[in-house]
């Protein structure tokens, strides 16, 4: 599998998809041009004599087919297609130049929404991922030609070296183009998506197919790729299914959360925004991909338990009785009750349960202090309070972002973890924050009189507990 750019990063979709070179920066244009030219140069320089053209044609066709059906990675910036196998097989069967021709066939991949610039870049890059590892293969003592019984296991070493070189060349060229065409903030994120160990593992797995194609050539001839394609396409199918299921899952969770929020106009969209804020913090502190996913869901689901609090308590004006306060204090536990059955990270559950704890130990439901509070809960608490402050409430208007930031800073160390407050503020200052629509509700009848998330207007009870 070779990674290639398909979809521009979300925020720059326009110019890459449009395919106009005019708006690319000069350095980026030079880079894309250089990659394409280098790929072409290695093919033209040859030597073209003595190449097994039947193999090149079959494998080139394979690359075109793979390229035309490439799957988009979840990050939406990258795609992958299982054509590493074809290129690496070409290295063994036809040598570096043949492999460069096979890789260059990526130019002819037919896909909607890919601009000519990207086609050219991908073609040049894949030619290089064929040629350079091919030289590595020769350097390590690999023999070009259809392997026979005597070639094994001696062939495995050089092949593994070529596969490694292939992955490295592919990744570095791709990182380069993402870095040059992306905005500075997103470059790190893209690099993280690329360096996901699962992606790298999958890729090396696909490389192994290359050796199988080469090894079987002496037995099955040009029929080999057909047989090899089958498991590849099943893996691709599963990846596509996974992506579709994940989108469906996210949409369903978000729809159900919105249904829960409809009870109270003022908190509409709250879960969605807390989720977004928590993810911003998570990215800022460099959390791993899986944990970021988990905190995204934790943010969406953190207030589900509020449904168990009677509406008249949530909407009560004035001070609360002990019992009513206890009912509110129970909502994180009720949320946990609901989501406990969901098999995602335990961390997310802990986050939902403890998102109202305070660093100074005066929170609920358990009154944990400092580092006793799970990391997820400390992240959620910051995003939760911030969104509450920047949203309109029946008893006050929405506060502007700078004021809410000042408020976060004020409670930093007593209510919030200072590290996460700093991370959140840094992320907001760089990327901005989109709050809710500030339009007033049509009917103020069902409005809550206080917000349990709002640190500036804490719940007041008649008697202390």
């Amino acid at each position, binding site marked *: 599998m070779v990674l290639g750019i398909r979809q521009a990063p979300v925020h720059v979709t326009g110019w890459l998809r449009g395919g106009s070179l005019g708006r690319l920066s000069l350095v980026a244009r030079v880079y894309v041009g250089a990659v394409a030219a280098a790929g072409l140069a290695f093919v033209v320089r040859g030597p073209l004599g003595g190449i097994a053209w039947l193999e090149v044609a079959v494998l080139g066709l394979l690359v075109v087919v793979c390229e035309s059906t490439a799957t988009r990675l979840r990050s939406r910036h990258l795609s992958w297609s299982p054509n590493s196998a074809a290129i690496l097989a070409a290295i063994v069967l036809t040598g570096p130049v043949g492999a460069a021709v096979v890789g260059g066939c990526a130019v002819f991949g037919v896909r909607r929404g890919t601009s000519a610039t990207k086609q050219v870049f991908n073609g040049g890059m894949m030619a290089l991922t064929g040629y350079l590892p091919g030289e590595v293969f020769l350097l390590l003592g690999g023999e070009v030609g259809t392997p*026979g*019984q005597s070639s*094994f*296991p001696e062939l495995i070493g050089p092949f593994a070296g070529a596969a490694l070189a292939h992955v490295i060349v592919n990744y570095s060229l791709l990182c380069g183009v993402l870095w040059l065409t992306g905005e500075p903030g997103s470059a790190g994120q893209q690099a993280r998506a690329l360096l996901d160990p*699962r992606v790298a*593992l*999958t890729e090396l*797995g*696909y490389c*192994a197919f290359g*050796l*199988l194609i080469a*090894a*079987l050539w*002496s*037995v*099955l*001839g040009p*029929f080999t790729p057909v*047989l090899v394609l*089958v*498991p*590849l396409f*099943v*893996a691709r199918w*599963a*990846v596509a299914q*996974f992506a579709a*299921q*994940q*989108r*469906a*899952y996210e*949409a*369903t*969770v*978000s*729809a*159900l959360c*919105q*249904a*829960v929020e*409809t*009870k109270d106009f003022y908190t509409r969209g709250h879960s969605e925004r807390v989720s977004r804020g928590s993810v911003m913090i998570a990215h800022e502190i460099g959390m791993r991909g899986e944990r970021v996913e988990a905190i995204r869901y934790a943010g969406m689901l953190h207030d589900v*338990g509020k*449904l*168990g609090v009677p*509406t008249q308590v949530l909407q009560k004006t004035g001070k609360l009785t002990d019992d009513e306060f206890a009912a509110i204090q*129970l909502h994180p*536990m*009720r949320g*946990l*009750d*609901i*989501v406990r*059955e*969901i*098999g995602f990270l335990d961390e997310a559950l802990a986050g939902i349960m403890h998102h109202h704890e305070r660093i100074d130990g005066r929170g609920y*439901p*358990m009154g944990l202090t400092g580092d006793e509070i799970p990391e997820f809960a400390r992240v959620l608490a910051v995003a939760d309070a911030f969104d509450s402050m920047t949203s309109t409430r029946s008893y006050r208007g929405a506060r502007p972002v700078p004021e809410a930031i000042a408020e976060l800073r004020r409670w930093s160390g007593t209510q919030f973890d200072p590290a996460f407050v700093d991370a959140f503020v840094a992320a907001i200052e760089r990327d901005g924050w989109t709050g809710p629509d500030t339009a007033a509700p049509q009917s103020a009848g069902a409005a809550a009189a206080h917000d349990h998330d709002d640190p500036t207007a804490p719940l007041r009870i008649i008697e202390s507990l």
Partner: protein
Amino acid sequence: MTTTTRPRRCGSSKASEAVGERRYEPRGFPRQVLDSGQSLLVIFAGVLLIASVAQTAAAGPRDVRDAIAFGALIAFGELLRLSLPGDRESAPIATAGALAYAMLIQVGNHPARHTAQQVIAVTAIGMIVGALPHLAVGRPARLSGMAARLLAVACAAGVFRPLASNPEIGRHWWLALPVMASLVALAWLVEAVIEALIRTDALRARFGVALVDEMRVQLPLGTAVGASALLIAFAAEVMGLAAVAMFTAPLLVTQVAYRRYAGIRATYLQTVRALARVTEIGGYVETGHSARVSRLAVSIGRELGMAEPELLELEYAALMHDIGQLSLRDPIPGGATVLVVRDEQRRIAEYGAEVIQQAKVLDSVAEIVRRQSDPYRPGAGSTAANGGRGRGRGNEPPLSSRIIRAANAFDDLVGTSVEPSRAAAAVERLRLDTAGEYDPQVVDALGRLVSRRSVLGP
């Protein structure tokens, strides 16, 4: 901590608390219950195993190195079992390894001379070794699944081993390939049939439906397994035993991708099951209502011969059928929608469908939820209730909606009671309304389930 978590719910009673205890059990698919059909299968496989081991031992094992290599691969594959949708389990790497071993013609320089019995013995021993760690950590052994895989491999080996010594087969790949491909397909079919028989037996599904379901679920992975088996059998000729190691990596990739897919599918279902309970926590419906209705609806659907994708949609819709109650200001006493007026029912259904439609991927589920409040025959029964929507005779609600309507009414009437007479009375009451309200076919299926006692009780 546990003492503080007990939520106070509207209308909660001792009975509902008792039901709460068993509410979380995996639904629909009884795990590891060996009934007569399955034990017969396992015994048959056991006899086959003993006979094969005895014969192999008597004749002397051939090419011991190959046998050990493939046995290790099979054990490894069995260790990395894969959960598939619908509580299935599969061991792609083990199956591919066993099929490849069955179809070896030549390993490196020497021809493969092992017998079909040896294939069965090696496969079975490999599977058992690979299953031991599962047992050690307390996971079920899944003997019937292992037996099905062993029989499938035995079929392929039984046909191919005698052919393998034929020099013509070894010489021309274009002769060997079609034979091997059809044997792989045969093995796949055998496994699907056996699995379908097991499910028919255990879930009282219809065999035809179960077989189609099984084949649909197993097709993508089965194709990959079959192709990989062919690949390794051919590759062993050039690469010798190195092929065994090399080939494991690519199928591992397929398996990793597949595992993630199966994982998120399972999480999805778990999440909907969990979130459907918001109506319970909010005091809108009785504890366990959504879970009971969905379990009952799926049973009825299976009784009526619905296929798995439809059953999944039915389950989602049944779980979320009351989500529309969130739009109500005050919960209905006891959450029994059967007791409120038709217009209110319709409004709840409509709102629930709107919520589900927001997800954009569950439109058919939304449609099922929307139509659950429609009577079976809008023309008959109470004509005023038609609400002037002009849904005529030819436009009856989808089967899933009719099932949920009946299951919901049944649960509202019976609740957590385990009294058989009460359930029978509830079915009778629904039967009285089959002229217009409930689909007679659905009520009949419900009646059959009740009389088999598969609805009530733990």
